[in-house]
Every structure is written in structure tokens, then in C-alpha cells.
């Protein structure tokens, strides 16, 4: 069974750039064009990994999606999906990215990839996150 990856990204060209290397490496790619649609598709598809753009239609959409998915509330409708690794796309300056990383309270995600996307970096992070989550 190929691994399923959900890309939550509102820019169709960026989706293409992500899709090319992922599909070439046998991943099954699904796309949501907004945070809301992303949350919906998480329930429908139950993906193995979520790639999430932090800044979409609003600057907080990506943050809200990750906070909802990682809600500590066991009654949350997203509780069954809490374990799905999240890789975020950022466009932060190189220097600031030194201090910009996963943070349980602020941005509960597993790893991040800087834009522009380097396909090899993307693939190695995707591989590592899926392996780690399957091992748990």
C-alpha cells in the first residue's frame, strides 16, 4: 500500500512542485486548498503524513489546523488523527529559521521545510517522519 500524503496548500503551483517528487517516489498525494478543507480531508483520508503551508488564505490558517489536529482534548473530533506527523512549509529567512522550529505550545508540528522546496530535502524529511510514526 502506498503511503498517503495530504498537502494543505492554497497555491496550485506549489502543490505541483510538491506533487512531482512525491508521486515520482510512489506516494499517493491528496490536496486541500484551505485549512478547513484540510481538516475535512484528514477525516476522510486518514493520511500517513500532512504537509501544511503555514501561511495560506490567512496568516493563521496553518497554525489553526495544526493546533486543532494536536488538540490535547480527548473528546476532540480530531483525537484519532493526533498521531499523524505534520510537516510544515515555511518561508522564513534563513537566520530566523535557526530559532523557528516545532514547538508544542505555539506550533505543534514535527518538522519544517523551507520554501523554495528542495525536492531531496523534502523527500528525506517525508521518509523520516513516516518511518518514525510507523515505528511508534
Amino acid at each position: 500500500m502506498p503511503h498517503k500524503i495530504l498537502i494543505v496548500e492554497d497555491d496550485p503551483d506549489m502543490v505541483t512542485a510538491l506533487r512531482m517528487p512525491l508521486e515520482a517516489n510512489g506516494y499517493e498525494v491528496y490536496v486541500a486548498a484551505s485549512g478547513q478543507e484540510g481538516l475535512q480531508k484528514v477525516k476522510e483520508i486518514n493520511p500517513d503524513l500532512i504537509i501544511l503551508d503555514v501561511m495560506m488564505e490567512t496568516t493563521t490558517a496553518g497554525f489553526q489546523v495544526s493546533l486543532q489536529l494536536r488538540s490535547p482534548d480527548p473528546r476532540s473530533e480530531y483525537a484519532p488523527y493526533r498521531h499523524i506527523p505534520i510537516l510544515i512549509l515555511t518561508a522564513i529567512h534563513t537566520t530566523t529559521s535557526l530559532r523557528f522550529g516545532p514547538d508544542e505550545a505555539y506550533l505543534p508540528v514535527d518538522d519544517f521545510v523551507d520554501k523554495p522546496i528542495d525536492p531531496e530535502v523534502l523527500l528525506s524529511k517525508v521518509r523520516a517522519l513516516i518511518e518514525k510514526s510507523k515505528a511508534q
Partner: protein
Amino acid sequence: MKLGEVLDVLMAAAAQVADADAVAVLLLEGERLTVAARRGLPNDWPVPVGESPADREALMGQAVTVGEAERPDVPFPPGFSSLLCVPLSLPTRPLGVLRAYRRKPPPFSAADAECLLALASLGAAAVQSARETAELERIEAAKSRFIHVATHELRSPIAVAQSLVRGIVKGYAGPLTDQQQDLFSRVSARLDFLEHLVNDLLDLAASRAPELAEEECAVAVNASVGRAALLLMPRAEEKGVSLLFRPCCEELAVIATEEGLDRIFVNLIENGIKYTPPGGTVTVTMGQKEGEVWVKIADTGIGIPPEAMPHLFEEFYRAPNARAINAVGTGLGLTIVKELVERYRGRIEVESEVGKGTTFTVTFPAVGPPTCGLS
């Protein structure tokens, strides 16, 4: 204080000094007076503007007192018996008028008028200052908005285009001929440059807008240089340049922002790597001397010709030998570095010999133990 708050304070003070039951402030918008604030007047009474000769006389610079029925051309709110109208003026021009109303006798006296005139001249200065503050805030907000828009709207399409091209170059859109591979690689290099340029322009804009920066604190220099070296280590390795970092034994700190100090060291070390041929070395050392912290970034690179030295920190300037080796550069890096160093009360010096290498030394006033950058 915001204009609304200034007007509230002004009206409260006016009611007190003139023993008035109601007050209105009318401000000029172009040639016309408009009601800016009112208190104590009947809600259903629309303060008449533009038709009261009392306002016109006050705008000429005098205090005007009028009793009800004395002058049928001056409109009165129902239930009020006297009006005192004074100019709100700067020494150079009128801003508007301040009207005070009393319900019952006695009518306003000459002493009331004098008190209100004195208050109004203070009030005019406060109104003007609030308006200038609001204008500055508007400009600042516009500037921040521009930088935000530039960040997103300019960088985002470049990042998308670059991501697509990288996918093509790596063959994810199918095999490429040698010529296509070469052409797409050139497109990719141009996009890299564009991304760099936009980032540098944004950094420069940010370094010139201190209010956009984080608050300054005592930043640990060791940690800042360490972060920069760590970030650039892969690039040095890739190029075959040794990057040596000798942290100092002491906890040195300078007053700066973490991001700004990191940016200084990242730019200088990055330059060192860029202009040093494979096999060369970039060495970063630091220390403290006579109340100052110094950091030296020394490379064994191509060096800077003497004729380029005076222009080194100018915007968009690139030394001819730097252009010649075709290294990607925007000519903004050192401008940004110098502006940041000076903002943090430091100085930057450069020594160089063509073919031997370049040493940049940045020096800052030393301060006590670090208060930020400890995380």
C-alpha cells in the same frame, strides 16, 4: 495621546475653567468647521456649523461672548443662555474653535474668556501633536504593511517558481536533454539570485525601521557566532572551505537583537566562504579588550582591491574581482552589516590583500552577562 482622548481632556478642562454646562470642539477641515467632539449639549441638537458668525469671529483670533437673544444670527441650543467661543489656534494658523455654553446667568465674563483662551492655546498644541502622532502612526503602519506585502507577495511567487524549476532540474517532470538541463539550471540560478535580492532588500528595509525589530537586550556573542557558523557549515563543506570557529572562554555579550547580531555574523561568514577558493579557510575568533567585544572573520580568499575599499559598504556595490568570479551576490550584504553594526553602537573594520585574503573585525561595547539568547 490619541486625538479623541485629547479632546475629552480639553472639554473637561474647559467646562471646569469657564464653569460651563456644555462644550463643543469644532475643527477646520480645509475651509470648513466640523464638530470633532461635544459634551453636555442636548443629543437632538445638531451643533450648527458654518452659519455662526461667532465661530467666524473666533477664528479671527478673538474670544466672543454672546447672550441668548442678543444676536439672532447666533444659534443657541434650547435651554442655554450664554455662549463663549474662543479660537483653537497655533501661532501660525487656526485649527478650529472651542465653544462653551451656560444654561443660567451670569453670562460669561471677560475673566472667563481669558481663562478659556489660555486653555485653548494649550489645547491647540495638544490637538496638533495628537494629529502629528496619528500621521506618524499611519506612515509606520503603511511601511510595516508594505514590508509585509513585499515579503509575501514578492517572495512567495519566487519561491513557487524556484520549487517548480528545482523539480524539473532533478528530473521529476521527465528526462531532460543536456541543453534543457543547462537552460533550466540557469533559470534556477537567476531565481536564486532574485530570492537573495528580495531577502536582502527586506533586511535592509527592516534594519532602517528599528520599530520593526525586536527589543534589544544583552545577546551572548558566543552563541550568536555559533549559530551563524552552524548554519553555514554545510555550505563551507560543500565548497571545500574549512570553517573554523574559536569561541571565547568568557561569556561576552553586546546590546543588540538576536536576529540582528546573527544576521551580521551570517553575512560576514557567508561572504568569507563565497570569496574563498576550495582548500581555503575562514576563521572566526573573538575576544574582549578594553571594555569592547571584538569578533574577527578572516578568510584566505580573493581579497579586495584597494580601489574597491572606499565603496565596500555602498548599496549595490560589488568589487570587480567579486563580479569576475561570478559568485551570487546582491551588493547589499555589507550595507546591511554596517547599518546593523552601527545601530548596535559598534564599528566595522576591514583589512585585505588581493590574492591573500580579507579580515573583517566588528567591535561593540561589552556589557555584563547575557540577558537574552540563553534559550
